[in-house]
């Protein structure tokens, strides 16, 4: 069970594609509780290896005041949202369709703020061949 009721109306939810203690979101929401959920059904369904789980866990230990849970992601978060009277969940963007599914589900119950991935070159049209993409963007990629 959660140790204490945080006073922040926001909660930072880390996903496995954004385990960065230095992320801007952590700076912007310095007082918000920080949460990660190991989604047990997904770990089992995808047969995720112990090495990956350990890597994620070790990365989480680097995040001060992190609270780590196991269970079903959305159910755990909704429980915390209710217990702590959370009004906003803050997280990072990922193309991962499973995590995006959880984000969409959460959004039905709470405001979700998603920090976008910072891309070296922003181009939302994706050609089907890398050679074409590179020809178009090589110069931007190679310029500071």
């Amino acid at each position, binding site marked *: 069970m959660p140790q204490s009721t945080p006073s922040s109306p926001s909660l930072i939810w880390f996903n496995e594609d954004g385990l960065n203690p230095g992320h801007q979101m952590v700076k912007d929401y310095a007082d918000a509780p920080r949460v990660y959920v190991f989604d047990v059904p997904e770990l089992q369904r995808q047969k995720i290896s112990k*090495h990956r789980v350990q*890597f994620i866990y070790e990365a989480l230990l680097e995040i001060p005041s992190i609270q780590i849970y196991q269970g079903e992601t959305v159910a755990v978060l909704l429980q915390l949202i209710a217990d702590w009277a959370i009004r906003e969940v803050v997280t990072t963007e990922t193309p991962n369709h499973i995590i995006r599914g959880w984000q969409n589900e959460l959004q039905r119950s709470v405001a979700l703020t998603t920090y976008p991935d910072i891309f070296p070159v922003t181009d939302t049209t994706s050609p089907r061949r890398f050679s074409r993409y590179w020809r178009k963007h090589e110069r931007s990629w190679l310029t500071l």
Partner: protein
Amino acid sequence: MMQQLRTDLELADRAAIATYLQSEFPFLEDAETLSPYVGGRAAGLERLQSFQLEKYGKQRNFLDGEVSRLSPYVSRGCLTLEELRQWALKQPRSRSVEVFVFELGWRAFFHLVYGEEGDRILQDLEEPKVPMGQHQRSLPADIANGTTGIPSMDTLIQILRETGYLHNHARMYLASYVVHFRKVSWRAGADWMYSLLIDGDFASNHLSWQWVASTFSTKPYIFNRENLERYAGSVLPGDPKKGDPFNYSYEALAERLFGGAYTPEPTGRPTGQYQ
């Protein structure tokens, strides 16, 4: 049901962390070894400092060559692609710098495609360029267990299982072996590799498997003995000569594997680079 995990374990005591996680997640297959990839941003930054970028351009295709091995940190978000790009561009300009940034570009490209296609990347994105309709839908146990009887492939599988990481060229060999030599659907292979990689990422993984298979490229990726010896010979044990499935010219190999459905261009030798 929700249960909170301990956070008071010492990062330095990795064996204790492994034991603890095994008790929290008893369904995980016990790895027996610890992966050399320590989780976290600090460990990633340390690895970045020891990466000899100046050697990368010449060596990156060789299994014993200098590569960053940063993908676990990048995929799990401990380090960002943009910070690696900026870091590289601040080094003295060289071919190595450009090749490294080019490879970062691949990751961004795969992410763009995934962002647009969503879970459609789990299915064939294009018609395969060689027949694949009869491919086996599940991964044979000898591949999962690393007991194929081909020492080179079994070694790669063992490295993958023991460390949670594989060199890019090794991933290409293994994927090609599974899909084209063993006639297993790329999806079965991709799901399997995804589950074992610390850097497992649907974009880079499943789209690379499709690239190897030819459902996201113009041709299947295949390799032969000569290529394997040149790029991986120093790392892999020798394979028996008798019945060696790789010991053919590319033309002969294509004929054996695809029965004339695809003929490689006769010029040049594949470098192990994506084209």
